[in-house]
């Protein structure tokens, strides 16, 4: 194994299709029009010296190192800013060029410290490389003159010197090493889209400056690390590299945080991760990442990770550390006992959207084939199950229609109930880039999100009352239909016309107009009409949506309404358009694909279908139950009723992530055996009897499937600290229960999946190694996968318009609970925070805050930063208030990353009508000033501390 060295072509790739031929150093080269001479040379294998150019950002032409000679042209143009022309004859090396370049380097080096041997970038410094490349042998100017290098010169303070900025937990900024190439500034603007950095001052005075000469941490910086990656020197350097040294080998793998699915090179020294560097060939992220994937992997070796299996008879007892055998036999005996006593259907399991496809597949196999029932569900239940339902009803597949590259061809972006800048940051960066090029943005969200507020982006924001999505989307359809903006040719060709006619008549009713619905939705009718016109007529229109759509009692209806909008405007079936759910966790798509729902086998095929079930029966060599099993909320109800007594939970914290915490606590407490298989003693583990230590994404092989349906490899870079990868644990548990599954490697599991699932038949590890990644369907018809779906027709045949009646949720405000609470995420934390809270990311978000409008705050005598009591019909908690007009009067907002807040104590158990996806996004609440934690929080905290005790190990007295 060696370090993967990616070629830096110096300037970005040109998308032009017109080709240009020129001669460089005597070789004919043909490249797309708009390519720089620098890039053309590199494509032919000639590296022209450079410092300020790098292919992630546009050329700037400031260092003057990349000069070339062009026959027939005077002077020495910079090759990074000079585009190719037909017939040019270019020389990259001549006496004149050599002299000029040496002169440039001499100037740089005369203001640069010469501590190369002890510098963190030693071995990975472009300044060093260029000094070598141009043959710099001595520097005529001494170091005594004006410089940025020394704190003191001639015994006095050197005003040009600046101390290191170590405020960011993950990287340092050492201004004394800066060559002011502005790569970092351009990366922050062009790649990340945050505009946190500027070059302040001019000439010798110019400096890289976060914000208005702030510290990195104090500035707008979101710590994505793009600037660190772009910096050619040690000026911006990962602290981990400073601490450990340069990596010696690297392995390509996939981020385990969000549904964007960024590909990374894990750069290693032995089994120690030195740093994670986004991989330029990663088709989801194209060399970019966010703070979580790049930096927040410290949890993998956190001291709180549990590495030994543990058991206990009762949850009041302390945990006993035991051997794997003992824990597995204990668990198996309990489960078998429960099945004997209460029946075969009294146990079940929950698969994880954080684990690999292979692991998820095995858990559902264990349940269906080993437990002999279909009581398998996944936490996608609580986030995106309505997406599966809604899109399969209308289009015929349970997934998004595009790849992320598609956004580059989009003219109008409609974002509904999603906040990509926080939850899908790398996609947001790609989107913002397109918006800066002129695409239009419409945001439908109760809150003014970071997306609406991002720099250089103008958004049309429709702030709606939480819970009124369907009314707003139907009003958009009303405008499109009644103003004659329907793409009739598309609808006639692709959709069922009579269903369309019914639907069109329905949406055209006056009661669905923006004017008539404004009283419920709170959306300005003029703005809504404007949005409908832009989406219908503005060119390629793409819809991106998130949990603000699905987590409602009408979640599935909303997804259907979205699909209707895309069909009626013909925005489906080509690049730049489509319907795109932004998935929360890394493998939500995969866990759904892998048959994690109680009614569906892998590939979304209903369990009652004999032909499909028989295939699985033949392969697994067992008889399968043909009835749908229990969904998570139904499992809880059945537990309280006393008919569901054992649960195996892999890699999820259902207690913290599911709504109405008190109900979940009651359900878990009622069960006789809860097996938690996780990295940490999470909140669910407080009610567990068996704890099986899990492994991290760095410790196993497998695949994740991101929001684009893209299947990507996860590769093992270190031995599991807990002894086994999660897929091995599931096999061991199955074996203990008397059900044998034999696999030597996850690739064999994927082969089985491919053999049983028509959309996966072309997928294998060999294929993935060869292509990097594939988007399903991948089969004989699409051997390289399917970036855009429904191109020549819908998967289900004709697109199906379905009527979407707005039905107000039964969760209503009233005198006791007059405000509507809605929930969301922030960038630096992930989901329930189990991982990110165990990294330095806590500097950005130490606690959950309640956002409240100044008007509502004043009425209640709440000041910024005050503790407030947040109460709903389900329960109450306390947290601190943040007063802001990002939320409208009548609406409050919070995140749910911290267990102390227990935001889900507040949420009710109302849920989506079709899928029982809980209604997180609307809860009627009241706010009042408070002095501190509620009684529930204190009692919960006490129970948690009690339950997490681990008994000291005593030698067995035999």
């Amino acid at each position: 194994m060696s370090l993967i060295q990616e070629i830096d072509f110096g300037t970005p790739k040109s998308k032009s299709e017109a080709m240009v031929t020129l001669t460089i150093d005597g070789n004919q080269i043909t490249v797309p029009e708009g390519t720089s001479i620098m890039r053309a040379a590199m494509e032919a294998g000639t590296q022209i010296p450079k410092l300020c150019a790098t292919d992630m950002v546009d050329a700037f032409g400031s260092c003057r190192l990349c000069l070339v000679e062009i026959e027939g042209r005077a002077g020495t143009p910079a090759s990074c800013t000079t585009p190719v022309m037909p017939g040019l004859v270019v020389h990259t090396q001549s006496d004149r060029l050599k002299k000029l370049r040496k002169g440039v380097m001499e100037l740089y080096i005369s203001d640069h410290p010469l501590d190369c041997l002890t510098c963190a970038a030693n071995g990975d410094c472009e300044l060093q490389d260029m000094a070598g490349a141009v043959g710099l042998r001595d520097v005529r100017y001494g170091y005594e003159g004006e410089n940025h290098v020394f704190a003191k010169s001639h015994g006095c303070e050197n005003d040009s010197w600046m101390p290191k900025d170590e405020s960011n937990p993950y990287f340092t900024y050492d201004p004394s090493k800066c060559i002011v190439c502005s790569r970092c500034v351009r990366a922050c603007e062009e790649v990340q889209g945050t505009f946190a950095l500027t070059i302040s001052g001019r000439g010798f005075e110019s400096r890289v400056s976060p914000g208005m000469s702030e510290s990195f941490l104090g500035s707008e910086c979101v710590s994505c690390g793009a600037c660190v990656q772009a910096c050619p020197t040690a000026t911006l350097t990962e602290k981990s590299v400073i601490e450990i040294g340069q990596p010696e080998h690297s392995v390509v793998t996939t981020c385990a945080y969000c549904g964007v699915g960024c590909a990374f090179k894990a750069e290693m020294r032995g089994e120690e991760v030195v740093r994670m560097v986004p991989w330029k060939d990663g088709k989801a992220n194209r060399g970019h990442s966010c703070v979580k994937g790049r930096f927040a992997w410290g949890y993998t070796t956190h001291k709180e990770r549990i590495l030994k299996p543990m058991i206990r008879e009762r949850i009041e007892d302390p945990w006993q550390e035991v051997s794997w055998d003992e824990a597995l036999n204990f668990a198996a005996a309990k489960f078998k006992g429960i099945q004997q006593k209460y029946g075969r259907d009294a146990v079940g399991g929950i698969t994880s959207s954080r684990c690999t496809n292979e692991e998820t597949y095995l858990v559902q196999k264990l349940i269906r084939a080993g437990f002999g029932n279909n009581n398998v569900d996944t936490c996608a239940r609580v986030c995106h199950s309505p997406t599966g339902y809604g899109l399969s009803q209308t289009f015929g597949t349970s997934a998004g229609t595009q790849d992320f590259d598609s956004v580059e061809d989009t003219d109008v972006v409609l974002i509904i109930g999603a906040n990509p800048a926080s939850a899908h940051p790398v996609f947001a960066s790609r989107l913002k880039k397109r918006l800066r090029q002129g695409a239009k943005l419409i945001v439908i969200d109760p809150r003014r999100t970071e997306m609406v507020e991002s720099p250089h982006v103008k958004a049309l924001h429709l702030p709606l009352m939480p819970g009124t999505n369907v009314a707003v989307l139907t009003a958009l359809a009303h405008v499109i239909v009644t103003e004659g903006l329907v793409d009739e040719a598309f609808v006639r060709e692709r959709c069922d016309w009579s269903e369309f006619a019914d639907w069109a008549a329905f949406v055209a009713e006056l009661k669905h107009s923006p004017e008539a619905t404004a009283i419920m939705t709170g959306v300005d009718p003029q703005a809504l009409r404007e949005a409908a016109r832009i989406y219908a007529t503005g060119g390629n229109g793409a819809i991106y949506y998130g949990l603000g759509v699905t987590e409602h009692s009408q979640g599935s209806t909303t997804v259907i309404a979205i699909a209707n909008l895309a069909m009626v405007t013909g925005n489906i079936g080509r690049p730049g358009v489509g319907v795109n759910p932004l998935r929360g966790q890394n493998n939500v798509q995969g866990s759904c694909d892998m048959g994690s729902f109680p009614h569906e086998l892998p590939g979304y095929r209903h369990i009652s279908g004999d032909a499909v079930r028989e295939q699985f029966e033949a392969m697994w060599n067992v008889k399968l139950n043909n009835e749908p099993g229990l969904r998570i909320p139904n499992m809880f109800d059945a537990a309280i009723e006393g008919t569901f007594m054992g649960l195996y939970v892999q890699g999820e914290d259902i207690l913290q992530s599911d709504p109405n915490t008190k109900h979940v606590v009651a359900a878990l407490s009622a069960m006789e055996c809860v097996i938690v298989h996780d990295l940490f003693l999470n909140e669910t583990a407080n009610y567990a009897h068996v704890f099986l230590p899990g492994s991290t994404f760095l410790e196993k092989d497998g695949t994740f499937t991101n929001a684009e349906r893209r299947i990507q490899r996860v590769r093992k870079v270190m031995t599991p600290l807990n002894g086994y990868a999660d897929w091995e644990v599931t096999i061991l548990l199955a074996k203990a229960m008397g059900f044998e599954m034999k696999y030597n490697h996850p690739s064999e599991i994927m082969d089985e999946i491919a053999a049983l699932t028509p959309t996966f038949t072309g997928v294998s590890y060999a294929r993935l190694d060869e292509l990097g990644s594939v988007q399903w369907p991948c089969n004989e018809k699409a051997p390289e996968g399917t970036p855009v779906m429904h191109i020549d027709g819908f998967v289900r045949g004709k697109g199906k318009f379905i009527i979407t009646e707005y039905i107000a949720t039964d969760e209503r405000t009233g005198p006791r609970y007059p405000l509507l609470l809605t929930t969301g995420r922030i960038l630096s934390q992930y989901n329930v925070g189990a991982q990110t809270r165990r990294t330095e990311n806590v500097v950005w978000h130490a606690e959950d805050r309640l956002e409240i409008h100044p008007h509502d705050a004043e009425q209640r005598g709440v000041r910024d930063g005050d503790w407030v009591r947040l109460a709903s019909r389900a329960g109450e908690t306390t947290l601190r208030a943040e007063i802001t007009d990002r939320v409208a009067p009548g609406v409050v907002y919070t995140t749910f990353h911290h267990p102390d807040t227990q935001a889900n104590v507040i949420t009710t158990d109302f849920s989506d009508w079709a899928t029982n996806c809980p209604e997180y996004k609307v809860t009627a609440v009241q706010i009042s000033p408070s002095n501190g934690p509620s009684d529930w929080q204190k009692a919960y905290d006490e129970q948690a501390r009690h339950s997490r005790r681990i008994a000291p190990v005593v030698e067995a007295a035999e």
Partner: protein
Amino acid sequence: MSSSPDKLVYMANQIGKFFHSQGHDRAVQGISEHIWKFWDPRMRKQIFAHLDTGGAGLDPDVLDALQKLKQQA
């Protein structure tokens, strides 16, 4: 929303409300198909038991859909 038949009645009616605007016949079809596809047998058994005692609280479309489903079962 705590005891079981109430909750199931609530869920069934919620499904019914979605299909309601499609007219009685399609609604009955849609509701029964949905419950057949997504509810586990013990939930179906419970709601059928409730149906046998008069089906209090069930909306008309839902009542018809459950009757139909029960006959098929």
